[in-house]
């Protein structure tokens, strides 16, 4: 299919008939794609489709089982990422690859420090780094002598791009570059990508955000189950086409139906004037059976609110009522034992113990409620086995064994394990922080179904998300955060524009009284 798109230009890089197998999986199955200079090429597909594997094969981090890689018309075989790098192929991984305790300049030129007889010329090093930063137009933002740890995520990414440019990259591969950027930062990155494009680089990026793929990509390659479904010109397709190619079926709806008034019950959680170092006078009410969506820009205090409600960083002042009784949420253990569950944003760092089996991860929350000295006798083990398989079915984790370590799972499956951990705790209030970040479309739909299913059982849900379609598609009410407080409350199915207006502080909906209009949930 790639051949159909052949233009008069020669491809800068091409993969032909690439196969790569891992134990039990054919990660890439006869994949052929061509990448042209001066083009932005998006690679999309569900998790496990083989996107990252393909990128790693191209960058020399993996060796393919068969197939050829052509770079500038020559057949190449990379034994080590450094070989690919020296040819002009750079990759920026999803996990950032900067040393936090070293300066920007030291990071950019790691392993290539300008030196005479082993002694580094620091002045020269900083000068060169400054020149590279200037070349990509970010020299005013980032100083060569700043420590990497002092930079924001977006700035760190720019440093990585600067590093690639300093390596004279002709092909720049980025694995989900925008996953953790705010919308302003995404714009900054997109501008940079456009500039690099005019310099004749071939830019390749993996993304789960279709809207942004359509914004900047010239071509889209879709992978599914390790196979190349097709490569298309962005202008000639719609996002529905791409989703269809990705999942092999038309998704008739992304989201389960919203709740209706009979689902909603009493207020189970009420916060009046809640404040701490990050939050300023938060008012909030949460009812049984509803999904309360929390939107807001990065840094607006969304995650901090979740952390306050779960006792990670508690409120310092204000009043909290839990099921009608005044209280204070002191710490996570206290919250869990009062049946509050928190599915965190960073599943790798906070949600899962990666080196432990799936089984133990699933039982983590419920075990924390048991006595330290509870004797795990034979019945207990059998009971927990049954519980694990019941949970696994409920969230649809597809693994051959629950004894597998959590780190061996795909992102979608990991998130399902985190979810099942909290389902096991039988919490009555659930806080979800970015429940579907970075996971594939199918797992996303599954997780949305599970969340809605919870509300049908009378659970109250707070869902934080930076993806507006998710907020709009899932929420029965929407709170929009702005500068550490609730900027305003919007009804179900408000428009993205309405939400963004409040989130950017242009429209102050803030209600001074906390009374919630009982009609509001009904849309």
């Amino acid at each position, binding site marked *: 299919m790639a051949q159909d798109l052949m233009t008069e230009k020669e491809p800068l890089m091409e993969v032909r008939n690439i196969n790569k197998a891992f134990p039990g999986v054919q990660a890439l199955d006869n994949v052929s794609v061509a990448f042209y200079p001066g083009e932005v090429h998006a690679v999309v597909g569900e998790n496990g489709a083989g996107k990252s594997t393909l990128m790693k094969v191209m960058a020399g*981090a993996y060796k393919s089982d068969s197939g050829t890689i052509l770079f500038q018309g020559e057949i190449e075989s990379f034994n*080590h*990422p*450094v070989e690919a*790098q020296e040819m002009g192929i750079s990759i920026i991984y999803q996990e950032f*690859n*900067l*040393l*936090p*305790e*070293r*300066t920007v*300049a*030291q990071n950019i030129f*790691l*392993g*290539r*420090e300008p*030196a005479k007889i*082993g*002694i*580094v010329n*620091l*002045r020269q090093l*900083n*000068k060169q780094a*400054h020149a590279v930063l*200037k070349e990509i137009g970010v020299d005013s933002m980032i*100083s*060569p*002598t700043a420590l990497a*740890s002092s930079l924001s995520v977006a700035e760190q990414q720019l440093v990585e791009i600067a590093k690639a440019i300093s390596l004279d990259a002709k092909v720049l591969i980025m694995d989900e570059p925008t996953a953790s950027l705010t919308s302003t930062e995404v714009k900054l990155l997109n501008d940079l990508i456009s500039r690099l494009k005019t310099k004749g680089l071939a830019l390749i990026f993996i993304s789960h955000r279709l809207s942004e793929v359509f914004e900047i990509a010239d071509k889209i390659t879709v992978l599914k189950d390790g196979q190349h479904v097709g490569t298309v010109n962005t202008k000639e397709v719609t996002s529905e086409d791409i989703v269809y190619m990705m999942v092999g079926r038309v998704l008739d709806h992304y989201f389960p139906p919203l709740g209706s008034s009979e689902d909603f019950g009493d207020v189970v959680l009420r916060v009046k004037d809640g404040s701490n*170092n990050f939050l300023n006078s938060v008012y909030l009410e949460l009812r049984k059976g509803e999904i309360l969506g929390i939107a807001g820009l990065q840094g607006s205090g969304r995650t901090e609110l979740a952390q306050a409600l779960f006792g990670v960083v508690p409120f310092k002042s204000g009043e909290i009522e839990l099921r009608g009784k005044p209280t204070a949420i002191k710490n996570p253990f206290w919250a869990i034992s009062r049946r509050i569950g928190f599915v965190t944003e960073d599943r790798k760092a906070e949600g899962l113990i990666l080196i432990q089996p799936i089984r133990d991860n699933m039982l983590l929350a419920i075990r924390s409620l048991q006595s330290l000295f509870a004797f795990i006798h034979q019945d207990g083990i059998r009971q927990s086995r049954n519980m694990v398989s019941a949970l696994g079915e409920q969230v649809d984790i597809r693994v051959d064994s629950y004894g597998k370590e959590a780190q061996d799972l795909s992102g979608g499956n990991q998130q399902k394990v985190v979810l099942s951990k909290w389902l096991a705790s039988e919490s009555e209030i659930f806080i979800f922080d970015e429940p579907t970040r970075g996971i594939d479309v199918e797992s996303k739909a599954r997780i949305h179904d599970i969340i809605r299913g919870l509300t049908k059982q009378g659970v109250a849900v707070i869902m934080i998300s930076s993806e507006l379609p998710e907020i709009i598609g899932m929420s029965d009410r929407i709170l929009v955060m702005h500068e550490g407080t609730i900027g305003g409350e919007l009804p179900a199915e408000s428009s993205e524009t309405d939400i963004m207006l409040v989130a950017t502080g242009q429209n102050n909906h803030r209600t001074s009284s906390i009374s919630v209009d009982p009609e509001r949930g009904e849309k």
Partner: protein
Amino acid sequence: MTTESIPADEIKRSKLGIRIPPVYYFLVIITVGGLILDILFAKGNIISNPTILTNILIRSVALGIVAVGQTFVMIGASIDLSVAYTISLTAVMTSQLMQGDPERVPMAIILVFVIGAVIGLVNGLIVTKLNVNPFIATLGTGLIIAGILNGTFANFKGSVPKSFRALGYESLGPIPISIIILIAVVVLGWFILSWTKFGAHLYGVGGSRELGRLSGLRTSRTIIVAHIICSLTAVLSGLFIVSRLGSGAPWVGPDGIYDLESVATTVIGGTALSGGRGGVFGTLAGVLIFGVIDTVFNQLGVDTYLKTVFRGAIIILAVASYSFRSKREAA
């Protein structure tokens, strides 16, 4: 508008590569506190008697030299627990080889440094090629050396000639040679870490082995070299100790707790156990803190057990303050 230059002050600061490690606040606090206690309870002996100050430094020399080496391996996310036995081995071998004969001094020194380099090489190879956790690897080599030492050598066999004892006792002008050596080792260590490619690569490999590999660094070689440097500093410490004692014994290293104390002072100095962060100036401050505590407690005539308790508390306090600080920075 285009400006080629970076703000001058930034270049200057980074050119020198010195940011005062926060451990110096501790050093100042403890020194001032110690002097106040000294004035109140020991008639201000420390201030009125400059030799006590010199003694603090001399006391710190043996630990200081080996702690510089420990800083190297710890920046590389490794550790060396065999240094105490390397020190013993050096002390014993030196006095055995020299047999009080000044002519044998150069030969003995060369030989013990070669042995030290081999120990470092073996440590580095076990850590990098056999992939054994460095804690276990160097614990193992340390025990092997200890076994050989105890089985082969008796206490205080042989001796070092008088000329060699100058290292421990003589002064160059007003400054004792041993202190000059310590300062030289610290400065050399700082230079290697801040100014050489090896130093930059060591921080890289220690910060993230995988990232180092992806950047084309020779990760194993870097860590092996760090281990060799560490063992060589242990040899130098051993030479200093034997020059003070006049003769070596297998227990001099473990008795001085040089393994754990070098790790402790390095950590107090701000070097991360997880690697990739730290430096020798911090370590020097850590060593001086221990020296000051020793001296003040001795002057006050306080029980040595209490001194050990105090040291333990300092380690915990220092590391807790770093983790509190980095938490605050992250927030």
